[in-house]
C-alpha cells in the first residue's frame, strides 16, 4: 500500500480522534496546571493542583481501593473464566442457551446491572441475599455502610459484570487450540490437570494476556456501578479514582476543574504504569516486524 493511500484511508478516523480525543486530553493536561471554572479561562498556578491532590488522603484511599479491586477482580476473572470456558467448550446442544444467558450480565448497561445487583442486597428493597444469609446464619450484614461487606459486594458485582467477556474470549481461544495437541497430550499419558497446565494454558497465553489487559483497563476505570452500589463510597473508603475525579470536578458545589484534571493526569500515569508490560511487548513486536 502506498503512503498516499494509507493517509487517505486513515485520515478521517485520525481526524476524528485528534479532534475529539487528543484536543480534550490536551485541555485536561492544561487545566491540571490552572485554577479554573467551567466557561472561564483559568489562571496558571503551576503544580499546586498536584500538590493539593497528593496531600489529600482521599486520593491515597481511592488509589488503594481501585488497585485492590483491580487485582482481586482480574485474578478471579481469569480463573473463573477459564474454568467456565473449559466446561462450555465441552458442552453440546445446550451451549448457545447457556452462553446467551451468561452474556446478559455483560451486555446489560453496567449501571442497570448494578442497580439490579443492589436490590438483591438491600434490605430496604427486600434483599433476597440478605434474607437468605439471615435465615442461615442469623447475621444481618450491612452491605452498604460497612467497608468490607461493601467491598465484597462491589467485587462480586464487578466480577459478575466482566466474567462473561473473559469467558467468551477464553472460549474463543480454546477453540483455536488444535485437537492434535490435546490428543498428543492424552497419548503421552498426561492427566487432565497436567494437560491444562502444560499444554492448553501455554497455547492460549496470548488470549489470557489480552483478557488480563482489557480487565485491568476496565476495572481501573470503575465508576458507574459505585453510584448505586456504594452511595457512601467516600465515607467508608470505597471510592474509586474516577468517582473521586467526578466528585471533585463535576458534582454540584465543588467543580474544582483544575484539581480534578490533576487527579485525572495522575490516573493516566498510573494506568500507563500498569499497562507498561503490555506496551513494551507490543513495541517489541512492532520492532521485529519493522
Amino acid at each position, binding site marked *: 500500500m502506498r503512503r498516499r493511500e494509507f493517509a487517505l484511508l486513515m485520515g478521517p478516523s485520525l481526524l476524528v480522534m485528534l479532534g475529539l480525543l487528543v484536543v480534550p486530553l490536551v485541555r485536561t493536561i492544561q487545566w491540571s496546571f490552572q485554577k479554573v471554572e467551567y466557561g472561564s479561562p483559568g489562571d496558571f498556578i503551576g503544580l499546586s493542583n498536584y500538590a493539593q491532590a497528593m496531600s489529600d488522603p482521599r486520593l491515597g484511599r481511592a488509589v488503594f481501593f481501585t488497585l485492590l479491586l483491580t487485582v482481586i477482580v482480574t485474578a478471579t476473572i481469569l480463573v473463573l473464566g477459564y474454568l467456565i470456558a473449559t466446561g462450555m467448550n465441552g458442552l453440546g446442544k445446550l451451549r448457545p442457551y447457556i452462553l446467551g444467558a451468561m452474556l446478559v*450480565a455483560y451486555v446489560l448497561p453496567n449501571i442497570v446491572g448494578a*442497580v439490579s445487583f443492589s436490590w438483591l442486597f438491600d434490605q430496604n*428493597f*427486600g*434483599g433476597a441475599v440478605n434474607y437468605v444469609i439471615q435465615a442461615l446464619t442469623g447475621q444481618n450484614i450491612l452491605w452498604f455502610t460497612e467497608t468490607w461487606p461493601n467491598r465484597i459486594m462491589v467485587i462480586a458485582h464487578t466480577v459478575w459484570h466482566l466474567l462473561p467477556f473473559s469467558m467468551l474470549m477464553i472460549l474463543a481461544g480454546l477453540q483455536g487450540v488444535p485437537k492434535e495437541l490435546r490428543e498428543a497430550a492424552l497419548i503421552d499419558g498426561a492427566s487432565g490437570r497436567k494437560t491444562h497446565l502444560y499444554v492448553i494454558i501455554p497455547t492460549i497465553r496470548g488470549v489470557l494476556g489480552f483478557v488480563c489487559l482489557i480487565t485491568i483497563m476496565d476495572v481501573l476505570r470503575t465508576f458507574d456501578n459505585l453510584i448505586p452500589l456504594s452511595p457512601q463510597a467516600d465515607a467508608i473508603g470505597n471510592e474509586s479514582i474516577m468517582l473521586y475525579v467526578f466528585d471533585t470536578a463535576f458534582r454540584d458545589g465543588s467543580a474544582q476543574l483544575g484539581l480534578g484534571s490533576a487527579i485525572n493526569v495522575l490516573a493516566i500515569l498510573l494506568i*500507563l504504569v500498569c499497562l507498561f508490560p503490555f506496551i513494551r511487548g507490543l513495541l517489541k*513486536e512492532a520492532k521485529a516486524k519493522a
Partner: protein
Amino acid sequence: MIADTIKAPAGSVIKPAPRARRRSAASRISAVLLILTAVVMLAPFIWTALSVTKPTDVAFANPPVLTGYTPTLKAFQDLWETTYFAQYLINTLVVAVLSTIVALVLGIPAAYALSRFPGYVSAILLLLALVFRSLPRFSVVLPMYEISKSLGIYDTTFALAAALVAINQPFSIWLLRNFFAEIPKELDEAAMIDGCTRWGTLRRVMIPLMRPGIFTAGIFVFLFAFQEYLTALVLTDTSSKTVPVFITTQLGQTLPMLQQAGAAAMLLTLPVIAISFVAQKYLVAGLSDGSVKG
C-alpha cells in the same frame, strides 16, 4: 513384580470403557454446574423482573414476598405515562445507531489501511489506539462538556453520538484491523491486477469478505453506545437524556419511582438480551478470528 507388570497393561486394556463412562458423568456434572452458574448470573435480572411486576406495597417488603400477590404491569404503565421514557429510549437508540454507523464508516477504511501498511507507523498508531482505549473517560469527557457548551451543541444527541464515536473508535479500529489481517494480501493484489483501484478493492472485495467481522464490530460498538452512562451523564441534560442516565435519576426517590426505574431497566435489557442470544455465535466466532490474534 512380574504379576504387576502383567497386570498394568491388562488394566489399561480394560480401561477405556469405564473411562468413557466417567467422562460422560463428568460432562453431565459440568453441564449442571454451568446451568447453575447461568442461573446465578441471571439472578439480579430475575429479581428485578419479579420486583417490578409486584404491586408496590409488596415489591420491597422484607422478608421478600414470593407468592400470594397478583402480578401487575402497573410500573410499566406508570413509566410510560408519567415520565418521558419513550423519548429517552428513542434518544438511546438514535445515539447508538448513529454512532455505530459513523464508527464503522470511519473505522473500516482505517482498519484496512492499518492491516496493509506494515512497519512502524501502523504499529505506533495501534499502540496509541490501545493507550486511548485505556484513558480515563473523564479526561476527555469533561473538556467535551465545556467544548460542547461553548459550541452550543450541549445536550444534543448529535454531540453525544460524536463523543461516543471518538471514544469507541480505538476499540473498533483494533477489532476490525485484526479481521482484515486474517484476509490474505494476495487477494488485494489479484483484485488490483484485475483493474480495481485501492478503494474499489476495499469496496468490492474486502467489505463483502469482512461481513462477519463488520457485524461483530458493529454489535460491540452498538452495545457500548447503548450502555454508556458516564459520557451521557456529562454531555446531556434533559432533551437528549438516555435511559441509563434516567434510571439513576429515579434512584433514591419514592418506591413507585424506583419500580419505574426497574421497569425501565427491564425494557432496556430485553432487546439487548435478544441481541445477545442472536449474536452469541458471531461474538464467539468473531472474537476467535479477530481481536485474539492481535
